[in-house]
C-alpha cells in the first residue's frame, strides 16, 4: 500500500515526475511533495472546498483524488493561476472588497469563481451564492465574496463588449 508508484503530470505548466504512495491524495501530494501550500485541506472529505484545484480544465477536490489518479493530467493550483495572471482581476476584487479574512478558504473560493466566470454571461447573486455552496468560509459571511465575484463578472462583461465594439469598428 505504501510502496511508491511513479507518476507523471503537468503542474502549473511544469512537467512533474516522481514516486508517490498510492494512498497519497492529490492534495497531500501537491502540498507535501511539491510544496504548493496554497491548496489547503479543511475537511478531507470533499465538503469544504479549500482543496479545489483545476484538473484537466475542471475544478475538482484534490482531497478526494489520489495522486496516482492524476497521472497524465494537467493540473493548476492557485500558485499557477496567479503566475499566469488568470485570476488577477478576481484577486484584486477580493482585495479591494475585503472578501477574505483568514484566507484559508480563499484559494478554493478563487477556483470556484474562476470556473463560474469561465461561463458566458453575468451570473446573478443567487447563482454566485449557489456556485459557492461547495466552499465554506467561517470568517466573511460570504457577502463580500459574492460582491467581489459579481464585480469581476460585470467588469469582464463590460470589457468583452468594449472589445467586440472595437473589433466591429476596426
Amino acid at each position, binding site marked *: 500500500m*505504501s510502496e511508491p508508484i511513479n507518476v507523471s503530470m503537468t503542474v502549473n505548466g511544469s512537467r512533474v515526475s516522481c514516486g508517490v*504512495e498510492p*494512498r*497519497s491524495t492529490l492534495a497531500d501530494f501537491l*502540498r*507535501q511533495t511539491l*510544496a*504548493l*501550500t*496554497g*491548496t*489547503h*485541506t*479543511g*475537511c*478531507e*472529505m470533499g*465538503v*469544504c472546498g*479549500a482543496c479545489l484545484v483545476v484538473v484537466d480544465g475542471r475544478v475538482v477536490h484534490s482531497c478526494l483524488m489520489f495522486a496516482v489518479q492524476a497521472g497524465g493530467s494537467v493540473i493548476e*493550483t*492557485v*500558485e499557477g493561476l*496567479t503566475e499566469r495572471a488568470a485570476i488577477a482581476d478576481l*484577486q484584486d476584487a*477580493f*482585495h*479591494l472588497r*475585503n472578501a*477574505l*479574512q*483568514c*484566507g*484559508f*478558504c*480563499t*484559494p478554493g473560493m*478563487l477556483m470556484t469563481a474562476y470556473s463560474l466566470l469561465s461561463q458566458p454571461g453575468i451570473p446573478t*447573486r*443567487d447563482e*454566485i*451564492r*449557489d456556485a*459557492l*455552496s461547495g*466552499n*465554506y*468560509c*467561517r*470568517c*466573511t*459571511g*460570504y*457577502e*463580500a*465574496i*459574492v460582491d467581489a465575484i459579481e464585480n469581476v463578472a460585470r467588469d469582464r462583461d463590460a470589457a468583452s463588449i468594449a472589445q467586440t465594439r472595437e473589433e466591429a469598428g476596426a
Partner: protein
Amino acid sequence: MNALTSLDRPNSYIGRSVPRPNAKRLLAGRGRYVTDFVLPRMLHVAYVRSPYAHARIVSIDAQAAREMPGVKLVATGQDLARLCTPWVGTMDHFKGMKSPPQLPLPVDKVVWSGQAVVAVVADTRALAEDAAETVAIEFDELPVVVDIDAARMPGSPVISPELGSNLCFHGKIDTGGVDDVFANAAHIVEEEFHFGRHTAVTMEPRAIIADYDASEQQLTVHHATQTPYQFQDIYSRHYGIPESRVRVIAPDIGGSFGMKLHMYHEDMAVVGLSIMLGRPVKYVADRIESFVSDIHARDHRVRARMAVDADGEILAMDVEDVTAIGAFSAYPRTSVVEGNQVYRLMGAPYTFRNYRADLQVVFQNKVQMSQYRAVGHPIACAVTERLVDMIAAKTARDVFEIRSGNLIPDDAYPCTSPTGYQFEALSHHACLAKLRQMMDYDRLRAEQAQLRSKGIHRGIGIATFVEITNPGPAFYGVGGARISSQDGAIIKITPSGDVRCLISVTELGQGTETIIGQIVAEHLGVDRNRIKVITGDTETTPHGGATYACRGAGIGGETALQAALKLKANVLSVAGAILQEASEKLDIQNGWIIDAATMHPRVELAEIARIVYFRSDTLPPGTQAQLSVTHHYAPQGYPFAFTNGVQGCHLELDVETGLVNILKVWVVEDCGRIINPLLVDEQIRGGVVQGLGAAFFEECAYGDNGQLTNGSLADYLVPMAVEMPDIEIGHVETPTLDTQLGAKGVGEAGTAAASAAALNAVNDAMAPFGGSIAQLPMTPARILKALGHI
C-alpha cells in the same frame, strides 16, 4: 463653511476604508499557516483516542506500534507527566469554583470520548497513524454523566470524586425585591430555553510544531493561536523552561474565533514529545479530531421570567442557567466565563433594577466547553429579547414600541446595570431608530400581513444587545490568570525613513495589522505604505494580551497611538536640533518635517533618519536621538468598554417543511470610533453568519453514552453561501472617552444578537399558528414540532 471632513487632513487614515496590505499574499496562495510549515528533521504525531466517554485505563500495549516503520516514539500519560506539571482551570474571583488537575495525556482514566490517550511519533503522519492503529488499550468502562440534571442528583456518579460533586461553580446574583415585584406584576412571561453545543469549525484546524533544542535549552513553538504570550507563559511554567528561552510564533492563522486561545492536551503533549526527542514534532488536528477535541460552545438550559407593569414597563427578571462544560474547566481562562457573562448580561440594555439569577456550571463526560466568539452574549441576548417580545405580544405592543419604552435612555449615562456592569455611554435609542428606518419596518409589517393572506409566512425579529469589549485586568488578571490586559508596541524609524511597528495584538485576518498601520500613520505623520506592522512572535514583539474579547482595536490601537505620539515627539526633538527651531513649532506630515503654522515643508523624515544614524557627528553636542520607542498601554477607567446595537432579521418560514429562508439581516452597531469601516462591516457580517449558524444549523449532537454523533463536515452543518442573506449595516459612533483613540471592539457584535433576532423572527412567523420555539438551533424538525405538525 468648512466642507472638509476629518479625512481631508493630511495623513488621515483613521475612519478610512483601506484594504488590508497583507491580504494580497493570502490571495496569491502565499499564506504561511502552521499547517504548511516543514522544519528540518520534523516528526509527526498521531494520537490514539478513547472510544469511551468515561473509562478507567487498565493497560496500554504499544509494543507493536514501537516496531512499526518510521516510528520514533510512543508516549503515554505517565511519560509526559514526568516532564509536565499539571494545570487547573480555575480563577480566584469565581468564588468556590473547582476543577480537577489536568495533564497532557491521562494516566488513569479518560473523561470524554475522543480524549487523546497515547501519542505515536513517526517520520510522517501516515506512518504515525499506521502505528497508532496497533496500540491496544484496555479500558474499564465507568458510568457516563451527560445529562445536566442527572449530573447534579445526589448519588450521581462523580467524574472527579476528589471534588465531591459534578458542580464546577455555583453563582448567585440577587438585587433583592424580585419576589415582591413578580407577586405584584401586571403580567409575567416565562420560558425555558435550550441552547445546543456548537463549535468553531475553523477552516484551518488546530496546528502546532514544537521544536526543542537541548543544546540551547530553547523551545520554539509555531502555534496557530491568537494568544502567543499566554502560551509562552504556559509552556515555560509547566515544562520548567525559562521564559526567555521559550519562543511562540503565531504566523497566518486559518480562523480562530476564540477557539485557538485555550490549552489543548494534544498541543501540550507535542511540547513534551519534542523535549523527549530533541526534534521538531508537528501536530495538525484532522476534522474529526477537531470535532472531538476543540472546545465546544454554549450548552445552556435557561429558565427565565420577566415581570411587567400595566403600562408595559419591564420591572424585573428572574433567571436560572445550567450550563455543562465537559469534565473539567478549560485552562487558563476557565469555563465559567461563559456562564458568568450569560447571567450578568441578561437584560443589560433595559432600565429595570430588580434582578435575580442562579448559575450552575456542571461537569459531564463531554469535550470541554469554553470561550468562543461572543462568550455568553448570544444566550443572554436571546433569552432577554425573546421575553421582551413575549411581553410585547402579551401587552399588545409593537416590538419597537416595547423596546423604546424600556431601553436605557441615551442621555442616562453613565449608569450601572443591576448586575454591576458600568456603562460609560450607549446609544440604544439612536440605534433602534436607525434600524427601523433601514428596515423600512412599517412597509415590512404591511407586506407581512398581505402575504399571510396568501399563505406566505414571513417573520420579523429584532434584538438589542450590549457587548463587552476592551476588558481590563478585572477580566482575567484579578483571578490569578497570567493573561495580560495591556499591550505593548515598539515603533522604530529605519535609516531610510520607513517605520516598523512591532505590537502585541495579533492578526487573525480581522485586520489588526492594517488598523495599527493606519493609527501609526495618522499619529506619526507618515504614509501608511511606509509602515510595516509585525505581530505574532514573542521573540520580537512586547508582551501583551494579543487578541481576545474584542480588545485589539481599542487597547492595541491606543497602545499604537500613544507609541506613535511618543516617537513623533522624539523625531521633532531631533528635528528641532537640526533645524535650530523649537520642536513645538514643527510637525510631521506625509513623511516631512513641516512648519506647524505654515505647513511649509522643512526637511524629509528620511533625511533626519540619515543624519541620526550615519552623521551623528553633525548633531549639536549632547544630542542623543531616540528614533525607536517602546510603549505599553493598560486600560484604565471603566473595567470594560461596552458597545451596543440592534439587529433585525427578516425571514420566510415554510410551515409545511419547517425550512426557513433568511431574506435579510440588518445591523446597527455602535463600536465607538471606527478606524476602518470596510473591516468593521466585514467583522459584523462574519459574526452575524456565525450567529445564524447557531440559530439554524450548528449543533454537536451527542448520544446518551456521551458519543458525538455528527463529527464531520458532512454531518455538522455550517452556513453556506446559498443559505445566507445580504446583511445591511449602519453605525452610530459613541467613542469611549477612556482613550484618545475612542475605539471599542466590534468582532463579536454580529454573533451576539443574530440568533436572538432570528429566534424572534421565527416566532413571529409562527405566531398565527399559536406555536412557539425556544431552542437553538431551530432545525426544521423542531420548527415542525413547535407548529404541532409532528
